[in-house]
């Protein structure tokens, strides 16, 4: 019979992941993990593809923290189907440079093997994330910028 990850394992994983403590996260990461964060790597250097447990733990413990320090990771939806898990979360962090608070949504698609994450794909609202990390509205050539009275992204 094919492997299915239990809700208890998923719950334990995201609680560990929310701490951003590599020691707590390590037991849930497979040695051969592939961890991808979709986004502009030249502005958000933690984006890209990271392979192997040591590299992923280094990403979480050092590379992300060089840009922002997450203090809240709240799942809004968790969908578990067999060995795969989709999670929609709201991540809040302080910019490492000046301590300003930023917040954006993250979607994770994970595949588990032996109760460990073997594949992760993270999708972030990257335009919003870049604007908040840099603390400035982006200059999108040729695009009209809405005034204050306009509806703003959710």
């Amino acid at each position, binding site marked *: 019979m094919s492997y299915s990850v239990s809700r208890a394992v998923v719950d334990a994983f995201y609680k560990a992941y929310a701490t951003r403590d590599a020691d707590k996260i390590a037991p849930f990461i497979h040695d051969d993990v592939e961890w*991808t964060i*979709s*986004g*502009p*790597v*030249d*502005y958000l250097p933690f*984006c*890209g*593809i990271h392979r192997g447990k040591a590299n992923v733990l280094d990403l979480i413990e050092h590379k992300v923290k060089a840009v922002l320090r997450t203090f809240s990771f709240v799942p*809004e*939806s*968790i*969908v*578990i*189907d067999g060995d*795969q*898990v*989709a999670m*929609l979360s709201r991540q809040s962090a302080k910019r490492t440079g000046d301590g300003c608070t930023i917040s954006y*949504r*993250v*979607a994770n*698609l994970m595949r588990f093997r032996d109760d460990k994450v073997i594949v992760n*794909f993270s*999708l*972030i*609202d*990257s*335009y*919003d*994330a*870049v604007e908040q990390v*840099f603390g*400035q509205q*982006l*200059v*999108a*050539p*040729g*695009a*009209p*910028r*809405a005034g204050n009275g*306009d*509806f*703003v*992204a*959710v």
Partner: protein
Amino acid sequence: MAKPVPRSVVEGFYKALAASDFVALDPYLDENVTWTISGPVDVLPFCGQRRGKDIVLKLLDRDIPVFLEKRRLTPNAMLIDGDRAAVFGKLMASRGDIGRKISYHIAQFVRFENEKVVDYLSLIDSFDAVEQVLGKQITVPGGVRAGDGELVAI
């Protein structure tokens, strides 16, 4: 406890959505459906939150095609868990006015009640989407764009 949605209903909804078949899509939407596309609404006007079946169908059938024609969703993963479903994939389209092909990552989280969609939220790689829709690189004030030798966003 929420009533589980049958896989056949989720697959029927996605078949209609992926094919932009709005006649087929209609019966899958609750009259009071909430439809949210996370992203910069002042650059991508189809982003934001809509409520109500008629408004959502207008968004899909008339508003979005002003910017993106021939939309096709290619799911990489479909997960179903109780009353919820999640789909990760690529959205492909073209800018009809200039004939440019566009493709970006998308994650969708959907909640069903009585076999109808009551809540839809999609997250897109919005930085990538904006650059492709505008056909120009976005300038980040104070940001440093990586050179050709750097790893590029996935």
